[in-house]
């Protein structure tokens, strides 16, 4: 049975009508028209669907819309803009990280939360924070370079 939900997405409050079990991913993509969180596995194994919920990275493919409540959702579109980029976005462009780029939400949203809470991280800490995220094109070396560049920018 469909229910009404009010979601705070990238600073904007939006109403949707959906089956409470619907994963947040489909609500964001299909009901709210946001294309950037992607379906990769539907199993919380890859990260392509990652968004922030009250600042914490979560996998929207397994998070029912009914579990979101009034938590603030931030997607990649809300992380930064070409005019006001997040340091990770700047670093990703500088390092020319993506190949296909379908995995990008997982790495950027996870790294953004990590760098916010961990200043001057070591290589091992960065790797550990990003463990489990998938990139099939093999851009891992560039990803590490970009995260380190962003960490340096964030002091």
């Amino acid at each position, binding site marked *: 049975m469909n229910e009404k939900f009010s979601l705070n997405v990238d600073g904007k409050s939006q109403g949707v009508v*959906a*089956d409470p079990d*619907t*994963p947040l991913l*489909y609500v964001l*993509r*299909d009901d709210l*028209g*946001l*294309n*950037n969180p*992607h*379906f*990769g*596995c*539907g*199993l919380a*194994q*890859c990260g*392509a669907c990652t968004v922030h919920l009250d600042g914490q990275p979560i996998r929207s493919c397994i998070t029912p819309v009914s579990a979101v409540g009034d938590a603030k959702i931030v*997607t*990649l*579109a809300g992380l*930064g*803009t*070409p005019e006001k*980029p997040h340091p*990770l*976005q700047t670093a*990703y*462009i500088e390092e*020319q*990280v*993506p*190949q*296909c*780029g*379908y*995995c*990008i939400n997982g790495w*950027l949203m996870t790294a953004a939360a990590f760098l916010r809470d961990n200043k001057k991280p070591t*290589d091992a800490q960065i*790797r*550990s924070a*990003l*463990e*489990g*995220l*998938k*990139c*099939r*094109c*093999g*851009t*891992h*070396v*560039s*990803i*590490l370079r970009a995260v380190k560049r962003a960490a340096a920018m964030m002091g």
Partner: protein
Amino acid sequence: MNRITKLGGPSRRALLKTGGALVVSIGAAVPFDFARAFALSPLQPDQLSSYIAVNADGTVSAFFGKIDMGHGIAVAIAQMVAEELDVPFKAVKVLMGDTATSVNQGGASGATGVQNGGKQLRAAAAEARRVLIDLAAEKLGVPAERLSVNGGIVHTGTEMAKSVSYGELIGGRYFNVTLAWNGKIGNPLYAPGKARPKDPKDYKIVGQPIKREDVAPRVFAQFNFCPDVKVPGMVHGRMIRPAIAGAVPASVDESSIKDIPGARVVWNQGFLGVVADKEWDAIKAAQQLKVTWSNAAPPFPDQASLYDHIRKAPVRKQESPDPQTGNVDDAFKGAARVIEAEYEWPFQSHASMGPACAVVEIKNDQVTLWTGSQKPHFTRDGVAGILGLPPENVRAIWVPGPGSYGRNDAGDAAMDAALLAKAVGKPVRLQYMRDQATGWDPKAPASIHRARAAIDAAGKVVAYEFTSKAFPRVDVNSNESKPHDTLAGQLTGVALQSGDGFGVPEDSYGFANKRTSWETIAPLLDRGSPLRTSHLRDPVGPQIHFASESFMDEVAAALKIDPVAFRLQYVTDARDIAVIKAAAEKAGWQSRPSPRKDQSGNKVSGRGFAYVQRHPTRVAVVAEVEIDRSSGKIWARKFTVAHDCGQIINPDGLLHTIEGNVVQATSRTLWEEVRFNNKNVTSVDWLSYPILDITQTPETIDVVLIDRPEIAPTGAGEPATRPVAAAIANAVFDATGVRIRRVPFSPDYVKAALS
């Protein structure tokens, strides 16, 4: 004088503004109204305007019949076109993979984007410049040989007052110039004009490390992938596959999904799918639908007997593509010593980052297909075929898919979406689920490889023999232009037509007696198989060269010769020698035989070498690894790669391409194996098909780019994948003295091998 056809007024409207259509270009503005323009003039491979257009504002559109798999090839193509035309790089927009605006140059295929696709665009741009200078000569009343071009302005050198721009000469109009087309489509298409491309010594744009413009849209969530295409009125589709490969639905209970809004079943023989208005509803319907399946006998051997199956299976076809050198059999008879080894490589999956997606809209027998397939022109032909329509009724628009490394599941998705759309009379967006993406995509073939070398009394290699026995490289062709090459075709009654072919090592070892060959065996299931084979990045290259370059290391070790010195002793090609030396020098290679014998304890390290050719590109790689003996875990810590693909168009794009190759190949070497039981593939997600994790990512990939401006550029999208497995295996041997002859080098397997 070249006749010029007016385009009926150059429209400044953006391309294809209709709902959901996506502009695929490396820049923002797209000057022509392409749909209208090409309706007026058929797109023909022998027409210059099929490749190059000068817009009224002097910008240039380059129409490319290949696509970008994530390496930024559009940048390289724009550089080649801008260079020949003498226009700024920023003035060129590359439009790729739309059958309405580009001829069939084969799509992404065999790392030929620059090698073949770029060659054609370069020739076309050079011809366009020649024609434009002729036009300017007439207009300015000056002989053509006195004219130069600077930034798209044709001028008389010192008399800058006498000048005319490309835009003034032809902006918004067709060239109407016929090229010397070789009559071929796809990769071999070539249609040069009368002009000769520039001398490389005059290059200003080619060779520059220009960055991609399509990275920023990706990181700012402004980029659309194929799964992001939305068409008004579309419904969502999902496919249903059997638990036992080969089973077909015997009965389908449509009432089992009647509570799901808009849910409908589409069933035709083995083809079974559902659609619903909402995506989550389509997913639920696919899960909830009650299906009774036919009794199919389990079609596969147990995985544990895969390699025995290959060994024992009747040979379907045998071939020795290169003539034998000398007399191998006689040389072995007289050998003082024979060294032999056998290697094994499993089935591997594309396991693209996201499951494939396709969107199909059919209106009055006119079809629009949005596809992530690497070969959209062929996909158009396939969709036309399965719908019973002529190809000209189908327009395929390539939109980047969620990863593409060959003939993955995208080709099947397009055909499935077409059948669903036809059945329900609405546009359909179909996306597979994860288990289907990994479980049911075409696989890279499993294989065994046998090598032997004859050594004479002086320790010289006098004979070498190498043969592969394998599932064929393509059960389904690397494009989906025929229904028999797709799941949809096979499940609706068109039998598989398995191709036959494999490959042999590519190198220049000058052994006096040498014979290489391959043998193929029949597929395990004659239709709708989750183990059907097709091309995955550098098709059969990693398999063959894992074996051949491991074997060279084995021979070197047996003869107690340094692995680099051994190769330099026998390799005959000058470019091969150069890459081998460049990699060794950059890595600080110290000459000594493997294995090293100075280590004890749990953690050991080693270095390994491998080199390959890949039709003309050459790559040599040094791998440095660390091994935890107690866990069997290998960390490929550092790679040093020397890469020669002839003339370098863009060193920045090339470096990233090589890095991606090396990391993905490391993943395939250490982790990747399609698991299956006798009923079906059981690798269905990232747990059952693990790939390299960031925690195991190499620390360093050092790349030496060897630029040869005078040699035509050749492929880079695949070659660096080829030598990686052998380099790692050779490094493991160097560290441990233990030879790993089976991929993947998973911790359990390595641990067992070390104990």
